[in-house]
């Protein structure tokens, strides 16, 4: 046998498996007419509160479910369940993000036939979740004012994969040196197609516009006919 070094061509994308699972999930959800939204942010940016407020705003139009991902706690899921919303807790057991297989497992525990919109509350982290396609129809991220306007420079990937940026905790703006204009410019240079909504999950500021966007996206995904027909609430 020769001891000469040979070259084997591989040309394989490491994330290809996850992307296959994510695509499969997307077609399954399209059939079920369930709109899956992936919500990402750093810890403490206001994901849970934003989800609750969003559901409050749109409860009459859509039936919501929530997938709560946490490294090791059920605190958020308890808050959501207390409002009578279908929720599944995914404990990632140390994992810093969700991938499509984990999301598929979580969705299997929900009755998708009676849900129009499922929101994934991803692990609080601005780095890792950006790398993994969850199978969601849309990615939404939150940047809260106290985190600072330099985050697009530090975590560029997250801003490039998101369809929407919610700038939360706008009620803090006057107390900080957060430069809204500079932040917008930085974000738009990373992702000129991103939609930016300035909100406060505490005061409700900006929720009309954000809820209108979500409502439009979910309706066009689910289809207008089923939206009218499926008015029987669980």
């Amino acid at each position, binding site marked *: 046998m020769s001891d000469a070094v040979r070259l084997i061509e591989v*040309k394989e994308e*490491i994330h290809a498996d996850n992307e296959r699972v994510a695509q499969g999930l997307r077609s399954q959800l399209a059939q079920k007419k369930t709109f899956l939204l992936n919500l990402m942010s750093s810890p403490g940016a206001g994901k849970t509160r934003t989800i609750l407020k969003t559901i409050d705003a749109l409860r009459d139009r859509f039936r919501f479910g929530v997938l709560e991902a946490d490294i090791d706690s059920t605190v958020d899921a308890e808050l959501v369940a207390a409002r009578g919303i279908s929720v599944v807790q995914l404990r990632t057991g140390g994992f810093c993000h969700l991938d499509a297989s984990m999301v598929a497992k979580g969705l299997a525990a929900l009755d998708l036939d009676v849900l129009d919109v499922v929101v994934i509350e991803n692990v609080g982290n601005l780095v890792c979740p950006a790398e993994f396609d969850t199978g969601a129809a849309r990615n939404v991220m939150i940047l809260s004012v106290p985190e600072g306007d330099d985050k697009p420079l530090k975590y560029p990937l997250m801003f490039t994969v998101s369809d929407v940026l919610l700038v939360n905790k706008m009620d803090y703006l006057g107390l900080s040196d957060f430069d809204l204009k500079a932040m917008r410019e930085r974000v738009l240079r990373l992702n000129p197609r991103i939609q930016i909504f300035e909100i406060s999950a505490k005061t409700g500021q900006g929720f009309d516009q954000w809820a209108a966007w979500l409502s439009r996206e979910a309706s066009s995904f689910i289809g207008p006919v089923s939206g009218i027909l499926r008015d029987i609430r669980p």
Partner: protein
Amino acid sequence: MHELQITERILDIVLKHALGQDVTKVVRIHLRIGALSDLEDEWIQHYFDYLSRGTVAENAQLAIRRAPAVLCCLSCSCSFEVTREELGRARCPECGEPGLELVAGREYLIENMEVL
């Protein structure tokens, strides 16, 4: 942060491609990782050394090449490379417009491997 999971995938793919190729040892694995990845090369190698014990890929060296981020101008369609630090600050070098779309920089590709 998720170097372990990524490294498991690398090893799976490498072993799959070594199978049936009369490989006694994988010497070097060439990876192309986009500039936007936050993974640490050193940790990927550490995890790989651990995971690959007892396989043909034991002691293989990971040769990681960082692929630049490439932006495409939405106004004039020209594309150009930028460093990670320039992202979020860049303007089109041709027309000066700030509307730029990321077209490369997220890849995680195993290109090829040197084997015995």
